[in-house]
């Protein structure tokens, strides 16, 4: 056992490893040594693996620690789990050294999988642990891994959305299995973009298929809907709706997301959203045919009377909405109809009596104006307190009816505020720099792209190209790149 402990504690060595080269060699050698040791002592090792955990520091000797955890979880008998093991896993996932973990992707994925399955921990803890671990592995959160999808599914299905928010709020721009140049840098290089070390080959993720990617964004959207974060829900669903397609592809998930997207758009902006220009042709057609009841709801939402909305809702029956899993959302849209009507009055009035407002706006639930003024006043007051409406209800002293004054929002920003807002946007765009760089590198080494480039240059030299067509080609860079890359 002592021998084992000394092997386990041998990495990282006490003398610091000055460069990536040294670190890489030492780490690879250590992984091999630990593997060999465990294999050689397979019979006895299981017995004292638990004890060894106490001697190894999860934050410092992460490679060794995960090997021990892996052994215990796979070969030992972790059920029923004893508290020490749970504490060990928790501590490890919260503190591990992400640089070392890049060398032990396989065991790491297995440990994460075990945590996620929900046998060891209750779902709420499992979600938080996996979310923290994923963000420790890739602090930028820009890479989708095979752990993301079950994580967000688990979070949504067990209603533990809060702990998963840090993960799903990140912008995903990388996916496993992207074709690119063979990676020559060492995985331990801390300057590497996430797709360089989170690869199917490193076992930190597996390959994904289209359904996985679509499902991830759909579930993100549903999580945000649950939290009533309409803006984020809308963006997430829009990613599904405008998913890149080829040869007339469209999937059920996209249709489903489109329906939710439309309803969320109504709640967010009070009007039917327009499809992004990047939406595939076939998808657009399919949305139009399969989303008819939803489109009808959207159209009715914009009308001045609530009758159509109510009819559209009732004509298909609540069973239809329930089957689509959108009943609650549609009901919410109906509730929000009058709220948006009230909100839109601000574009016309500065002051208006409550009575007039009551007759002017209709409730989609009651199909008509609300019956009593008290009921209406309560609605307006709730809107004001929720911040949906910027105004105050005034009651004149002389007994005249109460009225609402719309407060004009202070639209004009001071020079400083404006500069700060612009700067923060500029900073966010600048933060995309590494991502752009990584994408650029990948593209620059793509054979097809280079071939295309050489051809273009030749043409240029021969002066064959018309400057305008050339310009068009460079401007339309998105299509150009898609063609080139997908042609690999």
């Amino acid at each position, binding site marked *: 056992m002592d021998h084992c402990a000394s092997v386990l504690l041998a990495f990282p060595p006490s003398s610091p490893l000055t460069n990536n080269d040294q670190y890489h060699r030492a780490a690879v050698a250590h992984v091999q040594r630990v593997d060999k040791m465990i294999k050689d002592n397979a019979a006895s090792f299981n017995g004292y693996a638990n004890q060894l955990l106490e001697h190894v520091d999860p934050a410092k000797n992460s490679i060794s620690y995960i090997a021990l955890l892996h052994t215990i979880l796979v070969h030992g008998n972790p059920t029923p789990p004893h508290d020490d093991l749970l504490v060990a896993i928790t501590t490890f996932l919260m503190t591990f050294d992400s640089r070392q973990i890049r060398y032990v992707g396989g065991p790491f994925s297995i440990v994460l999988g075990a945590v*996620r*399955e929900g046998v060891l921990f209750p779902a709420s803890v499992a979600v938080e642990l996996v979310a923290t671990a994923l963000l420790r592995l890739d602090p930028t959160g820009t890479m989708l891994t*095979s752990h993301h999808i*079950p994580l967000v*599914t*688990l979070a949504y299905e067990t209603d533990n959305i809060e702990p998963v928010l840090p993960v799903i709020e990140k*912008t*995903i*721009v*990388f*996916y496993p*299995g*992207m*074709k690119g140049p063979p990676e020559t840098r060492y995985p331990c290089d801390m300057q590497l973009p996430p797709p360089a070390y989170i690869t199917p080959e490193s076992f930190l993720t*597996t*390959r994904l*298929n*289209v*359904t*996985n*990617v679509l*499902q991830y964004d759909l579930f993100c959207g549903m999580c945000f809907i649950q939290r009533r974060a309409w803006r984020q829900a809308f963006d997430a669903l829009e*990613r599904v709706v*405008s*998913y*890149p*397609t*080829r*040869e*007339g*592809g*469209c*999937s*059920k998930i996209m249709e*489903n997301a489109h329906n939710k997207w439309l309803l969320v758009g109504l709640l967010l902006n009070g009007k039917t959203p327009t499809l992004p220009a990047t939406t595939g042709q*076939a*998808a657009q057609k399919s949305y139009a045919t399969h989303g008819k009841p939803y489109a009808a709801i959207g159209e009715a939402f914009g009308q001045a009377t609530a009758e159509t909305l109510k009819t559209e809702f009732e004509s298909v029956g609540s069973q239809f909405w329930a089957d689509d899993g959108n009943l609650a959302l549609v009901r919410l849209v109906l509730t929000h109809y009058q709220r948006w009507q009230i909100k839109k009055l601000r*574009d*016309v*009035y500065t*002051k208006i*009596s409550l009575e*007039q407002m009551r007759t002017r706006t209709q409730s989609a639930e009651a199909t008509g104006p609300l019956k009593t003024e008290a009921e209406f006043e309560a609605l307006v007051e709730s809107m004001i307190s929720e911040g949906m409406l910027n105004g105050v209800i005034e009651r004149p002293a002389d007994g005249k009816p109460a*009225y609402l004054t719309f407060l004009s929002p202070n*639209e*004009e*920003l001071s020079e400083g505020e*404006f500069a700060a*807002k*612009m700067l923060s*946007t500029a900073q966010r*765009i600048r933060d*995309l720099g590494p991502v*752009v760089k990584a*994408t650029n590198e990948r593209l620059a080494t793509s054979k097809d792209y280079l071939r295309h480039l050489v051809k273009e240059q030749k043409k240029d030299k021969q002066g064959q190209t018309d400057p305008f067509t050339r310009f068009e080609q460079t401007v339309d860079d*998105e299509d150009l*790149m*898609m063609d080139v*890359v*997908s042609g690999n």
Partner: protein
Amino acid sequence: MTDSLLAFFTVIDNQCGVIVKEAPKFDLDLYIQSYRGRTRFDRLLLIGRSSVPLCVDALKAAVAEAKRGRDPQRYREAVECLRIAAPSEPEASFDKAWLENTETANQNETRRLTAELKGYKNNLIKESIRMGNEDLGKHYESIGDLNAAAEAYSKMRPDVSTSKQIIDVGRHLVSVALQRREWGMITSHLSKMPTGANSDEYEHLQPYIKIVTGLSMLGQERFLEAAMSFLAVDVNISSTNYNEVASPSDVAVYGGLLALATMDRAGLQQKVLEAADFRQFLEHAPHIRRAVAQFVNGRYSACISTLEAYRADYLLDIHLQKHIPKVYAQIRSKCIVQYMIPFSCVSLGTLEAAFSNPAQSIEEELFAMIRSGTLQARINAIDKLVTTVATNPRVKLQSTALATAQSYEKQAIDRLRRMSLAAADLELKGQRKTNTSFSGLGGAGDIIYDEATMV
């Protein structure tokens, strides 16, 4: 109103036709004298079906007009109307002998012309074929078979040789399209006519082309383009060149009204009141000139009442009838907008006095106008004030700048994402994906979503 008239207008009302109870200011006989050709009947029938005071007179005139022609269908239509509206009139009974004679004569003529055309075709003489088709087309048009007429006329096209002939083909086709109210077709027929190549021939054609273009734009509710066309009509060409379509007074009314509905004050001053040509047209319709002048001088309520006085006349015009409510509403809201410009705040009472409308309260009207974005203002329903909204260029600039920056960011991310998806071969393809090597994801499999399916 007699019982029979009442019954007639109930039928019209059920067919959603327009009914004008007020007597128009024009004299029916003088009015119809300014036209020739098939439009006379169309106009008479429309007046007969719409105007209560002129109903019987117009229908009788329509019957007489139909009898002068060779179109039995028109005769039947006019007599049917008259039979309901005024059964006691002598014209209200069918002249069976005339009908039979005309129909037989028409059939014979059709047969003769078709046979002739066949002969020409056998002889392969281009000019004869063209003339044969033209005669046949004219015949079909006169007996009311517009489909066949259009077909015969368009068969002329392969055999034309001079620009005059091209113009003839165009005119025939436009005339048919106009009767069938195919506004889009008119433009395409017109575009095939030579313009300006042969200046002499083109010159006398100018008013016709401008008027027909204007009508086609009007039919498509493109009011500004229509107004521009009418305003450009050359006054020096005799109206006999175009009176099968419209009279000079029509040109003035169409042009003036539509300009009023679409142009600003400076535009009206320059393009309507000060335009040398159009001023002469306006002499045929002095009230239109008055209304335009009143609008330009800022006397909006006077302008509206001048126009209202002539609403009945315009509702009886074959081309304007359908558009009058919309055109008037546009002029009215333009008046209100113009009225508001010099003020930052107007009381609702003042507006009500200036633009009183028994049908609708001014607040409702303003509400609709603000909603549609015609008027930039806010209503204060408590203190009964309307305040105009000043646009703040600074705020606009700031919000545009922020929106641009944000959309740039969003687009950048979206493009990166798409490139990555393409690189990872994760685009959704039309057929079922086969590389589903991914498995063992707990939870995700529980959801009953299909895999990417083909659509």
